[in-house]
């Protein structure tokens, strides 16, 4: 039923819808390179500041030129945007205040100045900054210019140009911009002009923000500047990887956003909703999705890692238990008793120790003989190294850290599972040839012996 409604709505898809998606995608791609730098330099709210700081630039451009020519407005806005960015950086250095504090001072001041100037200008003509500056993506395809016999929306053209220029700068100056953002002091020491590169980035941000505001409205631009880089950082450890992910995410969000905006409301019985809002919501949904499924830091991946680790610990606990029983010449233990004791000693669930036992059997590290569960050779080797780590740790905790002998077992129990061979040999050096743990039990030899 709902799918049917959706298909029906989508059958009305026109070239205007295509242009809306294209403009959204171009906006996202234009914002990608600037956004990556802003987020990595921890100045994500610069876009927000520029969106307000441009106001006096527009008003002054209007007062000086007395036209509402969009080119002149654009230049005025871009200059004021650049002023916002540079003034707030300068102010934060001069006053030694945190950067976002300085941003807050500068953009509110400029915005207020703009409002005062509008009142002055309003005596002669009406000037509504919302009409001049803050666009609406749904209307953007209607404002077209003819290029080579084809009607192209002005917004698509300007954002396309900004995208190409930004991407070009970013790729040509990749190593320089990256270094200036990562280590400005070093950049300066080798004369790679971080101040100049910083000004270049801020110019890109100002021009991009102004161009995008004019076409698609403010909320969407702010979202496109910040959310895709945040998502992309979760997906990539490389700057260029981040950049490509950023663009892809922006394009996907534009498509989902517009399709969602025209179909979802119909399904629940309304007309279509605001496309810019829906594109922003799509970005947030993508962010949530990535937080859930991202390979490294994602919630699911972390849960899987923790589960694998717990299974590993349970296996090692079983091996350790069997090794200690062999030491005590107890060779008969049923799998049921073994599981119960391992679960209790290591604080594992019953299901977890059963899985661990299955894993040990299938990898041939233990076997079940008529008398009971027994270590096989590879299992015994592994177990002796675990017990060695455990007892070395007990020795260390008792001798070097000064813990009471009856307190060292629990800590050593945790540490034995994370002890690498290097750590083990360093522990052995620290224990200076002592062959027993604090309880007098022998420390098994190392793998090399």
């Amino acid at each position, binding site marked *: 039923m709902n799918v049917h409604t959706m298909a029906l709505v989508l059958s009305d898809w026109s070239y205007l819808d295509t242009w809306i998606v294209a403009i959204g995608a171009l906006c996202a791609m234009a914002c990608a390179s600037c956004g990556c730098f802003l987020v*990595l330099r*921890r100045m994500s709210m610069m876009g927000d500041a520029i969106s307000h700081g441009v106001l006096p630039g527009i008003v002054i451009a209007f007062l000086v030129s007395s036209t509402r020519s969009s080119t002149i407005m654009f230049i005025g806005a871009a200059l004021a945007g650049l002023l916002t960015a540079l003034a707030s950086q300068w102010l934060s250095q001069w006053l030694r205040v945190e950067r976002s504090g300085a941003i807050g001072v500068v953009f509110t001041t400029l915005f207020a100045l703009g409002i005062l100037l509008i009142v002055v200008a309003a005596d002669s003509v009406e000037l509504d900054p919302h009409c001049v500056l803050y666009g609406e993506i749904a209307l953007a395809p209607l404002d077209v210019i003819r290029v080579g016999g084809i009607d192209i929306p002005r917004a698509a053209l300007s954002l396309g140009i900004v995208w190409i220029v930004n991407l070009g700068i970013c790729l*040509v*100056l*990749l*190593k*320089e911009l*990256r*270094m200036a*953002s*990562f*280590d400005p*002091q*070093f950049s*300066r*020491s*080798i*004369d*790679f002009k971080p101040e100049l590169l910083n000004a270049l980035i801020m110019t890109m941000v100002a021009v991009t923000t102004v161009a995008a505001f004019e076409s698609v409205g403010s909320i969407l631009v702010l979202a496109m500047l910040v959310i895709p880089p945040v998502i992309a*950082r979760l997906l*990539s*450890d*490389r*700057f260029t*990887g*981040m950049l490509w992910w950023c663009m892809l995410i922006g394009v996907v969000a534009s498509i989902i956003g517009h399709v969602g905006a025209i179909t979802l409301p119909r399904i629940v019985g309304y007309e279509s909703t605001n496309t810019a809002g829906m594109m922003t919501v799509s970005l947030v949904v993508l962010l949530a999705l990535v937080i859930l499924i991202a390979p490294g830091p994602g919630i699911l991946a972390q849960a899987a890692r923790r589960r694998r680790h717990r299974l590993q610990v349970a296996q090692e606990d079983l091996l350790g238990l069997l090794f200690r029983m062999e030491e005590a010449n107890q060779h008969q233990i049923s799998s049921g008793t073994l599981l119960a004791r391992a679960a209790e000693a290591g604080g594992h669930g019953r299901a977890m120790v059963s899985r661990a036992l299955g894993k040990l059997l299938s990898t041939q590290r233990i076997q079940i003989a008529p008398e009971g569960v027994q270590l096989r050779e590879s299992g015994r080797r592994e177990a002796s190294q675990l017990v060695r780590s455990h007892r070395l740790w007990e020795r260390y905790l008792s001798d070097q850290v000064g813990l009471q002998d009856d307190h060292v077992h629990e800590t050593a129990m945790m540490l034995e599972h994370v002890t690498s061979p290097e750590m083990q040999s360093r522990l052995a050096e620290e224990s200076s040839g002592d062959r027993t743990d604090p309880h007098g039990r022998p420390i098994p030899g190392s793998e090399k012996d």
Partner: protein
Amino acid sequence: MGSPRGNRHQPGCQVGDLGPEHSDKSAVSIHDLTVAYDRKPVIWDIDVDIPSGHLVAIVGPNGAGKSTLLKAAVDLVPTSSGQVRIFGSPYAQTRDSVAYVPQRESVDWDFPVTSLDVACMGLYRSIGWLRPVNRAHRKRGIEALDRLGIADLADRQISRLSGGQQQRVFLARALAQDAQLYLMDEPFAAVDAATEEAIVRLLQELRSQGRTLVVVHHDIQTVRKYFDWVLLLNMRIVSSGPTDEVFTSENLSKTYGGRLTLLDDAAEAVARGDR
């Protein structure tokens, strides 16, 4: 690697008679240098010559201006008066023979670059603007990482390195610069024993090639063991010279114990602008 440049000296060469009049043999010569933040002087009237071919420690309490002295040498902070000459020339002309290693905490280690990316930054001056880092450069970057024993971490993003490994990456970058003078800001801060050992070995190897290393150092215990020249600093130079002569308990208590309170108070007054 290692193209021979001027000013190389054999280790152990006689340098005791070097003074300002022999500044052509000095790696760094500083005259009347004063640096102030917000009008408050941080280092005051510094006059010192550091002869080339030595492994030099800059030692002094917190706030003594150790980092500032290095930064002033590489034009990272504006100076109020005085001048710094490196191998007899202003820094702007000798950049290619100087490698500066900032404090590890001065950068954001979450930045999405790899160890190799950072090491290759040491080659940027020889690569030049706008040209990409190519395979040959990456090979040299890996060689630099290898000399610090972390070639296997070349492709690792830098936040996934330990503190000691991060410091080694910084030194690999400096090594890639193939400089005659190394200025290092606390390379031993918060590193593990193995890293400290690796760094010391590297520094001594570089000195034996005739290079000069000036290192801001915090651990008084190891000064005698690692360094052959010491510069004791507390807003002004307390003493400077061969470790055996200069690193005495008397000089140390002058540097640390008897804070130069009068000078300190005067600095506050200058900052406030009163008399």
